[in-house]
């Protein structure tokens, strides 16, 4: 899959992924007051407005839902599979899955290194 939408450097709105060996994790923040996990680097907690500190989430999680996009989307080649993935003790993130089938709700997934399009990716654990 290729992704051609131009994104100026430093403005990519997607979660930042750190790869360590076989593990890929999302580098976000966690609220030091309410514990709310956020997949992005935000200046304060969006849930309680409390202070946040850097935190990493993943690689393991559970599929909340999933689908396969079969229509043209600019810069992308259909079909492609997606899932909302609830990372263990972490936030819900949108991830691309390999292949062209939706996974059942509750499927255990594991983040993998981002694809060349820069998307979060996951596969069945």
């Amino acid at each position, binding site marked *: 899959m290729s992704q051609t939408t131009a994104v100026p450097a430093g403005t990519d709105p997607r979660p930042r992924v750190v790869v360590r060996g076989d593990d890929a994790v999302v580098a976000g923040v966690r609220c030091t007051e309410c514990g709310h996990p956020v997949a992005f680097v935000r200046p304060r907690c969006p849930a309680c407005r409390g202070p946040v500190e850097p935190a990493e989430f993943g690689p393991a999680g559970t599929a909340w*839902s999933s689908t396969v996009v079969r*229509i*043209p989307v600019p810069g992308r080649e259909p079909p492609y599979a997606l899932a909302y993935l609830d990372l263990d003790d972490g936030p819900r993130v949108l991830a691309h899955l390999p292949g062209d089938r939706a996974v059942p709700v509750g499927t255990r997934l594991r983040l993998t290194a981002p694809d060349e399009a820069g998307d979060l990716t996951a596969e069945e654990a």
Partner: protein
Amino acid sequence: MDVAVHGVGTSHFGRQPDRPLIDLAWDAVREALADAGTDQVDAVYVGTVFGAPGVAQRVLSALGITGIPILTLENACASGTTALVEGHEAVRTGRYGRVLALGLEQMSTTFGGAIHPESSDAEGLAGLALPALYAMAAHRYLQTGAATAEQLATVSVKNHAHALHNPRAQYSGSYTVEQVLGSRMIADPLTLLQCCPTSDGAAAAVLAPATGGAREIPVRGLAIRSGDLWDHRSPHVWGYDLVAATAALAYEAAGIAPGDVDLFEVHDAFTIGEVATTEALGIVGHGDGGKAAESGRTAVGGASPVNPSGGLLSRGHPLGATGLAQVAEVVWQLRGDAGGRQVDGARIGLVETMGGGVSGIDGNACVVAVLGA
């Protein structure tokens, strides 16, 4: 002061790339003003999403509507009803004596197919087209036993059948559940006939103080809200809690309960949207939305008719125009002017419009309006 809808109008809805937006707007504005028996308004509130900068003044000046306040409001698919809310508030507080709320959108010249996901948004850039967001809600419903694929398809069958009696609708037809499920897959499990089309259109309403006139339709209660965070803690599918929270405010403002409403025009951009919304509006309990469609309860002739116009699925969905087209349908229904799709004896109608596109929240905006006496 009490406010009423004095006139409504719409263009034809459909793929109309050869018709200038000015012509579409004129169809809606001319009809609404004539219906209200006036050619004078003190301000115009315009809802549009993909309209070019200045589109409101560009269109209205061509219709001779100049020299008054004109405000453009963007609230995703709820832009038209956001214009209704603001126009209503301006009349209610006495700021203006009579206002026009106008919704506009020409989609066919902007997009070949589905709306392009917004690349400044985290999930938009990641390729989450709106059909995919609703598809994940549908997958969740099917997998948790909250609805069946056949029940979702029934919503499309019903709304396309309703639209057979709506000459302004983009599509209509007598489909079977099998035909709906057998149409081309868009985003699993949603098929083509379960998704609203790309549409061009305009719709308008004239609001002024209520005078008790026979053709006026009182605005009984209104609410607008943006979504709270939607994340791993959220108990329901995307948008559900926002619709429920907005509806609770509107029911309270109107002093009614869901059972008092005779007909509903709701945001069925996708079949799962109508199923979840019938639950979120309290028409039926959670998990009963699919059964309500299957049993005929939400069809014209059933106990709780939903989308007698054909809904977004059939009438079409020119984003900014949709909310005011829903208002027009309810006004026609409450006057008894809805022809072959008339809900007998309708006295109270409800409009629900829901807009999304910003990831991480439960919706950009939801409007719920209760009309009638």
